[in-house]
């Protein structure tokens, strides 16, 4: 690879360096040789640490792993045999089995077996009952983009497992919460896998400019117990899964944005208050793309998170999710003077032999609200706020497989952490 400064790749750049370094292109095509000369599996060695006591060994482990780029900068738990074996009680699968297919996680291509997955979950401070969620996640996502956009990872859990393993579904949904530790550990383990196994380390295997929310990603569970009557859970609505099935849906968030849903409190009626709340929500995820003419938000799906309290109010006024989504979509429009001078749009018009006169004064951006807007019931029971995950998409949903010892694992969790927390 011939590497140049970023400035070479910008509009109007000076291309002299390309001419000056043509010899490197020739060299890579005629002389360069790779380091590896043999095929087959390269087995990773097990690292060793020592210390005058356990605390000392723990610090030595932390230092060693960070030097090897195995970690996220925060303190980790040592992946000792005892700990990893304990985490592996969360599956009935063979520890050496790849999680899915050949197990390779892009871009580096390290092989993710159940043991390697348990190792990373152990390092993240996870418990065995989180392992089935992670297995379901990596069954459908074997790598992530290493581009500058750097979206974080995310998933939505549906089904009773969310409550059983203490996932946050209400206040403090995005953490941290000592009473609902699962979200953070699961999200952290996913990130560790992408870095340790997939090689997505900042500056080495990814050029994510900001790496937003990457420590634990966006790991949420739907507050299914408190959905309004007649509203299906997300996995049933989108994937036709039977209600009450434990599933993981992988999402690819680009960012997360909070918005004020509730107004002043002196609106003429609850309906107007709700409509204006939806307008504020729509403004949060509205994004105009000029890749089509007219502009649209095609492929710019959004997740809208509303608490069960707000969902109840919306259900009282709009009845169905469909009506809520149609109303949200109605607020996503672009007036023509917002885009009529955009270079990309003008080029499209030229290629289609059209002019701006062919377009209405206002263009609706979402042609299919039912597919593009995904309503999730989650967050603290309070009317004030909503949360938007814009420009995201959900891929598919995978059913979670539980080990035979599931009830024992949950019983142990009660011994270790106390009874399930009160929901708030």
């Amino acid at each position: 690879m011939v590497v140049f400064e970023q400035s070479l790749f910008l509009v109007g750049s000076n291309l002299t360096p390309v001419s000056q370094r043509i010899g490197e292109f020739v060299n890579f095509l005629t002389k360069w040789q790779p380091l590896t000369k043999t095929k087959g599996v390269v087995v990773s060695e097990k690292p060793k640490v020592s210390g005058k006591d356990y605390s000392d060994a723990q610090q030595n482990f932390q230092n060693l792993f960070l030097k090897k780029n195995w970690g996220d900068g925060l303190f980790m738990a040592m992946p000792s045999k005892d700990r990893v074996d304990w985490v592996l009680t969360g599956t009935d699968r063979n520890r050496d089995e790849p999680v899915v297919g050949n197990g390779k996680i892009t871009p580096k291509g390290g092989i993710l077996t159940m043991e390697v997955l348990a190792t990373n979950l152990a390092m993240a401070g996870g418990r065995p009952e989180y392992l089935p969620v992670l297995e379901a996640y990596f069954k459908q996502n074997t790598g992530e983009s290493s581009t500058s956009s750097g979206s974080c990872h995310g998933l939505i859990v549906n089904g009773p497992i969310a409550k059983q393993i203490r996932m946050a579904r209400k206040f403090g949904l995005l953490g941290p919460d000592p009473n609902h530790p699962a979200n953070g550990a699961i999200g952290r383990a996913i990130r560790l896998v992408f870095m340790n196994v997939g090689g997505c380390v900042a500056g080495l295997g990814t050029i994510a400019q900001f790496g937003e929310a990457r420590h634990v990603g966006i790991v949420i569970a739907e507050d299914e117990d408190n959905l309004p009557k007649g509203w299906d859970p997300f996995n049933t609505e989108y994937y036709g899964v039977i209600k009450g099935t434990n599933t993981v849906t992988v999402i690819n968030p680009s960012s997360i944005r909070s918005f004020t849903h509730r107004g002043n409190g002196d609106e003429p009626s609850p309906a107007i208050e709700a409509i204006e709340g939806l307008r504020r929500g729509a403004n949060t995820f509205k994004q105009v793309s000029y890749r089509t003419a007219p502009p649209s938000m095609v492929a710019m799906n959004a997740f809208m998170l509303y608490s069960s309290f707000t969902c109840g109010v919306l259900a009282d006024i709009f009845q169905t999710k469909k009506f809520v989504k149609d109303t949200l979509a109605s607020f996503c429009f672009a007036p023509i003077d917002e885009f009529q001078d955009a270079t990309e749009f003008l080029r499209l018009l030229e290629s289609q032999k059209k002019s701006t006169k062919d377009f209405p004064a206002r263009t609706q951006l979402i042609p299919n609200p039912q597919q593009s807007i995904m309503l999730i019931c989650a967050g603290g029971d309070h009317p004030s706020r909503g949360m938007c995950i814009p420009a995201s998409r959900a891929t598919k949903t995978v059913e979670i497989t539980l080990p035979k010892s599931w009830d024992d694992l949950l019983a142990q969790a009660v011994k270790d952490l106390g009874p399930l927390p009160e929901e708030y």
Partner: protein
Amino acid sequence: MRKQRSEKKNEGITRREFLKDVGLAVGGATVGYIGILSACSVGTEQPKTATNNVPNTATTPVITPVTTPVTTPPVTKVVEPTNPPAAVDLELFNPAGNQEITQFFAPRLSTLEGKTVAFLACDSVKWQPHRIFPVIMDELKKLYPTIKFLPMDQFPESTTISDDATIKIVAEKKPDAVITGSAG
């Protein structure tokens, strides 16, 4: 207390090295040993001296200091062991997983004279391949007058350049080499 620490050199890699060898092994995990030694030395106790100073007058007797001898126990010289056993010694699991090499890079060409080089772009304008690729072609042509090119508009662009369908198109056109760019 003294500590001795030995550790292997950090084996981190540069981005350039990583990008060249993506998909290949980047060395196995390096086993690093960190041993910590501690030792205490025992010294000899000094004799204790008691004094009582009083001004010297004609009627005041002079009191001379009295030294009380102290028996010194025999000193045993402690030799520090070179590698004393650590209290905690653990083997950990490797979080990076194994890697499998299934395919080598294509062999290099002995010369570019008379060869055909294809150009693939992940985006035809964004990172300036529409300007950079012609410069590369011009310079190569100066060095190898009989070189031939398959320009980027003969292939799909964007993220599809790594798809099987694109690879099939490239293979059908049978270039001797491919240059892809520009990374974003």
